[in-house]
């Protein structure tokens, strides 16, 4: 096991180096003013970190603002998705009756909601709504589908001792589905985070990681490195959030063999 971890680390360093080489080769071959190579991107990062963007907003401001927006949308998705998922799982009629509404909406990509969002919402609620759209369904569906998998023996044990429905839900159903709910939250925050570029395209404010990319995209050919810096930051922060949630899962569910990643 330890060997796997160590060789894994070595391989990852190699993979990263290989990726950077490939990027550099492609950039050299393409030779386009719109496509930054590794060195240009590194320089752009240093400049962004030192001086902020062309309007003087620092990288941390962009990151912080995006995190707050995603956090709000994600929190809302949990607040609605988890109870609704439980309700749909415990009372199958709720889902069966609402299927024709829920299922098609689930397959509309958040980006397709942009025009309506512009009409219906303003300011912060636009970001929150688009992130919510991305995060809500994985959380709802995971919660909902995990309920039939509660072990009936566990429910019978509680019933024989004279337990009522409320107690069974609190002490058997919820602990049973919690790992699935958290897995859904992990997928949800990932998707929500990926919606941030779309959300910040339509928000009026000039800050946020998505906005950072768009800002430089509107000046074609002048700052190709900055665009890639924005992309990489979004990727890395997404990874960090995912890892953080995995750690929480491991702590919380130490009673399981292992958390399935």
């Amino acid at each position: 096991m330890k060997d796997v971890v160590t060789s894994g680390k070595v391989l990852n360093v190699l993979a990263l180096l290989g990726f950077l080489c490939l990027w550099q080769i492609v950039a050299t071959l393409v030779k386009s003013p719109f496509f930054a190579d590794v060195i240009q991107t590194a320089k752009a990062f240093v400049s962004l970190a030192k001086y902020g963007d062309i309007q003087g907003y620092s990288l941390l401001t962009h990151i912080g603002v995006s995190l707050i927006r995603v956090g709000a949308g994600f929190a809302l998705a949990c607040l609605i998705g988890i109870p609704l998922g439980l309700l749909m799982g415990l009372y199958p009629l709720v889902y069966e009756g609402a299927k024709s509404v829920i299922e098609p909406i689930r397959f509309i990509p958040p980006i397709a909601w942009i025009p309506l969002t512009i009409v219906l919402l303003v300011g912060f609620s636009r970001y929150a709504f688009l992130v919510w759209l991305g995060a809500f369904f994985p959380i709802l569906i995971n919660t909902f589908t995990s309920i039939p998998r509660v072990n009936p023996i566990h429910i019978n044990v509680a019933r024989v001792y004279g337990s009522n429905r409320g107690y069974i839900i609190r002490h058997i159903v919820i602990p049973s589905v919690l790992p699935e709910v958290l897995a859904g939250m992990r997928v949800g925050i990932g998707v929500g985070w990926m919606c941030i570029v779309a959300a910040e395209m339509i928000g009026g404010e000039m800050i946020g990681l998505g906005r950072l990319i768009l800002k430089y995209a509107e000046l074609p050919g002048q700052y190709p490195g900055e665009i890639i810096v924005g992309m990489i930051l979004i990727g890395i922060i997404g990874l960090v959030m995912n890892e953080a949630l995995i750690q929480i899962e491991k702590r919380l569910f130490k009673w399981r063999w292992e958390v399935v990643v």
Partner: protein
Amino acid sequence: MSKGARKEALKTEKVKIQVKNLIKRFGDLLVLDKVSFSVYENEFLCICGPTGCGKTTLLNIIAGLIPATDSAPILIDGEPINPQRHNISFVFQEPSCLPWRNVRDNIKFGLEIKKEVLKQNMTENEIEEKVSRIINLVGLDEFEEYYPHQISGGMKQRVAIAQAFVTDPDLLLMDEPFGYLDVQTRYYMEKEVLRIWGKLKRTVIFVTHNIEEAVYLAERVIVLTELPANVKAVIPIDLPRPREYTDPEFVKIRRHITSLVKWW
């Protein structure tokens, strides 16, 4: 106890559980056809029968997990049985430990329900004391903090048995609790369950298709017929304890029950 004394004792013992004219159908399939029997107070009763003859169904009905199609009320101390009013425990064949609770908290589970849902009068301290005592009795002292996935199948069944006994059940139902265990562990667990029962004296209905196990454990064995099941015979086992599988008397009774169960 001598043979005669045991028979004498049976006559004077108090009826604890009474099942009368119990009928169960699943759709068109008649599973239990007017099953009637009694269980005496603190008796260890085994129910034997061919595979698929409705033994588990019978236990599930007594426990109130599924309804009977038709029956006189199942009585416990003369009152209709009710999991909310009587202390009933059930040890299932499948592992039933809650994976998110450690051994101690699993054993406590039934008592928690009695206190929180049924408002039985117990202090936290009393519960902890009872749990500690039973953990000691079943020999799990060193595993209190372990989670179910960290212990063996035999230990998991010991947790289930401790959880069942700790509530001081009026009736303890066991549905082939050692069915999934390997042979050595099963012999060991049979001894263990007798030792615990000997100490705590509860009324037990133990279902098994293993005739040797039934003769080893029971004070009386009820043999069911094949479907639709009915009581075919009631056989008192008057052998002294500890019983020996190779004792000629033991073998004789086992052969007799085997011939009754045989459906081939």
